């Protein structure tokens, strides 16, 4: 390890030097980074930091989760709702390993996190000491950066680098592992924010030739089609994006992480991409002449079989991460850079063009999808309740202005398909990793990160039981989390696949569930259960209008399926409406 260089690099810090412990330096560094809330769980190796937190309770609120996985998903939800870096604390060994699922989730979904773990004292490293785990080694493939601190004097610098790396460029999770002796040691504390690292480039330089080439291709296009992802939200480029698509009259479809970057009602918002996305956005991927991908990474759930994906189109890829270019889909015109900067440069060069005939093709597909799928899903003629009708009425109650946090599975696809949004950072879901158990703790974090907004956690009976203990954290924090349990007494998505592709052999997907009403009451939440359609409207009104947390369980059809669907391994144009 190179020696530490504490020479200020730029912007001499105003903070004067004082001698404090490493643990206090951790807390003060967090405060210097503007952190006022952290999620975590104490334990032996991180105890000095928790002791230091005791003195700063008025400035840094610690949320005690009931499991480290709950803590990190809450930090993720907080980061996604607030746009700030989520902070998570855990002890060594099992505390640290329990963070790994959330770190992997944050890595694949580009969520800025700083995780601080305690570690056994440095003289015990490598001795298989009590609660020792090589968390640096374990977390390396799923962190943007990680670092082990063994000397107190490294703490301010390590934390400054951690925040800079986590939030800059393509964001991601960072882990700092701090040995217990370093937490006890004294240091001369001096904090300086990090603004550059010589071996790290936040974002690639913009190449005007690429912008020109992209603009020319779009101007010449008859059927240009935009796909947008979370890159828009992370760059806070929602406005720039809207002006861009309006200037070119470009129909635009979203990935589930891009959802809410553009309001649902916008006439150029044509819907959802991917396996359970809308009919037109998938089908017409293979009809467009120019495909413009903005801040998305061509996940296999979006593309289906790559051999049958947009082969006719010239592909323009606006992307901040050079490693994403040509990773899955060849980009004829890569446009490297931060979308907030590249989009306006592109818009300036776009000619206004009427593309109403092309946009009308999406409307025609939409009409067909309504007829075959949406009408019956939102206004069922059968007695059995559907997930879609619940989300449809929820939209009426929230006016589309809620943060919708979902778990993973059928309810997630239904919520993404039918929930309406009027503002950005309002859809929080585990997209890349598909982590069941994400929903409830992420909703808790979102509620604390956006305290003035209504936060609804749409969750299934499977995923809820993976992190149900966090209802206790909801109670302790008095966070206004509204849990909407869509209970089909099955692991619905797996069951759907078993029905369609495994000859209805329902292997380990039926759930004999606990009494969720009693459970929620045990967690001291107001609760209600809907079993019939005539109860639904009133129940959802009460659910939204009650000030504070609420647990609403809706019994939905046990064997309902989510359609449309692109069967795994098929091309986007092979989307099935039934």
């Amino acid at each position, binding site marked *: *390890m*190179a020696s*530490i*260089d504490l020479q200020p*690099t*730029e912007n001499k810090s105003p903070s004067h030097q004082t001698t404090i412990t490493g643990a206090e330096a951790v807390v003060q560094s967090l405060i210097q980074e503007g952190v006022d809330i952290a999620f975590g769980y104490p334990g032996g190796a991180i105890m000095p930091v928790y002791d230091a937190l005791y003195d700063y309770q008025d400035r840094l609120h610690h949320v005690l989760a009931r499991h480290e996985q709950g803590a990190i998903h809450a930090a993720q939800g907080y980061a996604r709702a607030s746009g700030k870096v989520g902070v998570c604390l855990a002890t060594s060994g099992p505390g640290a390993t329990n963070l790994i699922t959330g770190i992997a989730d944050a890595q694949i979904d580009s969520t800025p996190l700083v995780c601080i773990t305690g570690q056994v004292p440095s003289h015990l490293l490598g001795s298989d000491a009590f609660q020792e785990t090589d968390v*640096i*080694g374990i977390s*390396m*493939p799923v962190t*943007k*950066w*990680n*670092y*082990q601190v063994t000397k107190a004097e*490294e703490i301010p*610098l*390590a934390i*400054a*680098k951690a925040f800079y*790396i986590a939030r800059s460029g393509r964001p991601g999770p960072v882990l700092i592992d701090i040995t217990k002796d370093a937490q006890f040691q004294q240091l001369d504390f001096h904090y*300086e924010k*990090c*603004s*550059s*690292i*010589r*071996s*790290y480039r936040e974002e690639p330089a913009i190449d005007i030739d690429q912008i020109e080439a992209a603009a020319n291709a779009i101007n010449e296009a008859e059927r240009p089609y935009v796909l947008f992802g979370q890159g828009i939200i992370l760059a806070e480029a929602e406005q720039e994006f809207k002006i861009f698509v309006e200037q070119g009259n470009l129909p635009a479809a979203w990935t589930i992480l891009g959802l809410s970057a553009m309001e649902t009602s916008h006439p150029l918002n044509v819907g959802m991409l991917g396996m359970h996305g809308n009919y037109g956005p998938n089908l017409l991927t293979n009809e467009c002449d120019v495909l413009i991908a903005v801040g998305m990474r061509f996940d296999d759930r979006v593309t289906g079989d790559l051999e049958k994906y947009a082969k006719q189109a010239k592909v323009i890829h606006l992307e901040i*991460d*050079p*490693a994403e*270019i*040509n*990773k899955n889909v*060849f980009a*004829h015109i890569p446009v490297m850079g931060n979308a907030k900067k590249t989009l306006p440069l592109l818009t300036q060069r776009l000619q206004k063009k009427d593309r109403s005939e092309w946009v009308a093709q999406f409307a025609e597909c939409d009409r067909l999808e309504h007829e075959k799928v949406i009408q019956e899903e939102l206004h069922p003629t059968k007695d059995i309740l559907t997930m879609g009708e619940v989300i449809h009425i929820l939209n009426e109650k929230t006016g589309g202005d809620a943060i919708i946090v979902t778990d993973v599975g059928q309810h997630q696809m239904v919520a993404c398909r039918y929930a309406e949004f009027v503002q950005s950072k309002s859809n929080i879901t585990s997209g890349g990793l598909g982590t069941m158990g994400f929903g409830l703790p992420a909703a808790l974090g979102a509620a604390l990160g956006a305290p003035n907004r209504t936060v609804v956690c749409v969750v299934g009976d499977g995923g809820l039981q993976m992190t149900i203990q966090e209802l206790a954290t909801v109670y302790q924090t008095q966070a206004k989390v509204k849990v909407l349990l869509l209970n089909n007494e099955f692991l619905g998505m797996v069951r759907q696949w078993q029905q369609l592709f495994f000859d209805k052999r329902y292997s380990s997907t039926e759930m004999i569930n606990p009494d969720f009403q009693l459970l929620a009451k045990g967690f001291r939440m107001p609760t209600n259960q809907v079993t019939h359609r005539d109860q639904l409207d009133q129940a959802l009104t009460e659910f939204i209008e009650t000030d504070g947390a609420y647990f609403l369980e809706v019994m939905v059809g046990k064997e309902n399926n989510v359609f449309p669907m692109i069967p795994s391994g098929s091309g986007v144009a092979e989307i099935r409406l039934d």
Partner: protein
Amino acid sequence: MEILDMEKQEFTITVYTENQVGLLHRITTIFTKRKINLESLTTSESEIEGIHRFTIAVTETEEQVIKVVKQIEKQVEVLKADYYKKKEVVQQELALYKIATETLTNGIEIERIVREHNARFLTIEREFVVIEKAGYKRETKALFDELEPYGIKEFVRSGRIAVARQQFGPGKEIEALLQTNSPSL
């Protein structure tokens, strides 16, 4: 669309990095995640003070190598990563062969072989001698095959080291990056 050769071939990847504990693991996991075998990996200093260098040998398709190099270059402590085809580098490997000293005293055959292969005796001890040979893998292998009948007690070959077949290596561009202010841990 650029056309890449889809056949697997020999590539040398060079990576210039900060000197940081754990970086080796971070780089190797990029290969293991994709089930790519590292034929050899050598870490050393580079021409730039304080900057380390990894020299990695793989046999892969160019498309896959490009993706891996981008993933490596994305790592925070990596300054630059590049890849080269076989003809774009000057490369070398070093091999050591240990044989019994008595095989030497039974005639001049060993000395002839060593001379013909442009190898040399590194050390001659009472019980064993160590022969050193630098060259391509096929050359060190050829010497191995000739010495084998005499009994090789121990054999080792180093990883590939290589420099770019051009006036300046990647170091030229890295010098510019090093002007950036940066806190060093």
